């Protein structure tokens, strides 16, 4: 578990993280979202004790991370993909980190296997592709088999197979009861992987919620209708200009209209509705909706739409 209370970090006049309080729970993948410059990476550095907060505090497993004597057993982190000496082999890089925490070379070989770098273990890491570097970073994070994992943009540079691999890995690690904080700009990927979300903008907390609650709270992008007379309803709705995007038994998926219009049309035609619900937008839509005003680099946010 990670708990931040009133976490604040100022660099000169810039407030990178501003009175941020959140909890990252075990057993779930928590997505950490925010526009560029929102303070995600700074927050991760604060969690790991790499930067000292201007105010507030953050604990990992109930204690400040830096107070642990062998912290790789408490939390593993991937902050930057290329944060290694390019002249060292992947295996030596991991052996260096492992040794400092009394982790055996056998475990190093095991994590190399786990991330699929066995064949490249003795190659100079400087020649690695971004995807391989990410795998090496993930291997380093897993060295101590820690209950907490912090991953900053881990899917960046991975091929589709790698993206699927990390999604499966993170989900299974979370299912084991681990705490996983994952930042990514890939909304579709986040929607598939994360159970909970923490969204920040300009260093401030915008929201923290379960993925379900977060998406449900958004404005609807389509309407789900159930009716014993679904076929008749479909014809009726199509005549009003709505688009019936899906028809499965007694359930219709309708876009291009609102729940109110459908309800009124059904009432006017004497059709029975057993369910009428506006469905949430995608994570990307919800995210854009929320962070529009917070993006430090609006052009980038616009380009991402």
């Amino acid at each position, binding site marked *: 578990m990670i708990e931040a209370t009133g976490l604040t970090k100022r660099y000169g006049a810039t407030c990178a993280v501003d009175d941020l309080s959140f909890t990252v729970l075990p057993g779930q993948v928590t997505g950490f979202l925010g526009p560029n410059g929102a303070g995600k990476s700074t927050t991760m550095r604060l969690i*790991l004790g790499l930067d000292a907060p201007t105010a507030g505090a953050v604990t990992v497993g109930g204690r400040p991370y*830096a107070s642990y*004597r062998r912290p790789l057993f408490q939390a593993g982190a991937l902050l930057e993909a290329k944060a290694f000496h*390019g002249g060292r082999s992947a295996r030596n890089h991991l052996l*260096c*980190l492992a*040794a400092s925490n009394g982790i055996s070379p056998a475990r190093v070989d095991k994590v190399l296997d786990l991330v699929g770098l066995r064949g490249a273990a003795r190659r100079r890491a400087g020649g690695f592709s971004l995807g391989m570097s990410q795998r090496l970073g993930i291997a*380093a994070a897993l060295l101590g088999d820690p209950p907490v994992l912090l991953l900053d943009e881990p899917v960046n540079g991975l091929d589709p197979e790698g993206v699927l691999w990390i999604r499966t890995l993170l989900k299974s690690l979370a299912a084991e*009861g681990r705490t996983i904080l994952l930042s990514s700009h890939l909304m579709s990927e986040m929607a598939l992987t994360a159970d909970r979300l923490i969204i920040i903008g300009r260093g401030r907390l915008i929201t923290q919620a379960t993925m379900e609650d977060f998406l449900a709270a958004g404005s609807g992008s389509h309407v789900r209708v159930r009716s014993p007379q679904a076929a008749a309803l479909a014809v009726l709705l199509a005549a009003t200009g709505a688009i019936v995007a899906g028809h499965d038994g007694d359930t219709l998926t309708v876009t291009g209209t609102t729940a109110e219009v459908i309800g009124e049309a059904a009432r006017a035609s004497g059709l029975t509705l057993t369910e009428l619900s506006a469905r949430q937008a995608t994570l990307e839509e919800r995210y854009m909706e929320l962070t529009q005003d917070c993006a430090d680099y609006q052009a980038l946010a616009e380009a991402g739409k």
Partner: protein
Amino acid sequence: MTAMLFTAPAAPASAGVIPLFADVLRSEARKLRTVRSTWWALLAAVGCNIVTAALLGVFLPGRLSAHEAATADSVRISLGGLHLSQVAIGLLGVLAITSEYGTGMIRATLAAVPQRRLMLAAKALVLAAATLATGIAASFAAYAVFQAFLPAGDAMRTTLATPGVLRAVLGAGLYLAALALLGFGLGAVFRSSAGAVAVLLGALFVPTILVMLLPQSWQDTVGPYLPMNAADTVFSLRHEAHTLQPWAGLGVFCLYAAAALAAGFILIGRRDA
């Protein structure tokens, strides 16, 4: 919520400071020996010393007058390669820490060992051991090679039993280790290879030149305490009236290294990584 199937593995039972330091030492020793630049620097130091000594041993004797040969500081001459090897060793000291900042590795290192000063101490110790061993080996090798190339009966011939010779040869090795630590301290302060190397080389060479602009009496007062001049005394056989005594000279040089290290130790605890 998912059932808590996972429980964190217990960290190794030995979580005291001393076993921790031993682990960090192992980690830092591996770091130092698993990058090529370390071996290049050490090889360059030994190579420069030996090659220079050999060249001097072969070519110098025929060019010196009998008087020159009799008054020359033969040990200092045999250690002429220090001019080059000190650069290699100083660079190694700087890179031992700045390469971590340059690559971003420092954040992985400090995430693994949040006890920053303990980490820095382990790094310094490993560097000191490597450079001391190499420095002493390089100095003795240079001395032996120079002596071996001298013609029989040359006035510059000495043995390790000759007063001052053992101290000077050993002192040169100690100087190289202290120099590496000076570079390391500067590296920890400046966190950039280019910056730290510039300051290191500047500190070694510039004051010795600048002081010559001062009046003679000032030169005699300040000069002996300049880093290079102070260090010079420990690997020289002959001393002038205004230079420091050999061990005092090395001591002064070590104070410079200690000051840089102290600044590095203070700053690493206070700054964001």
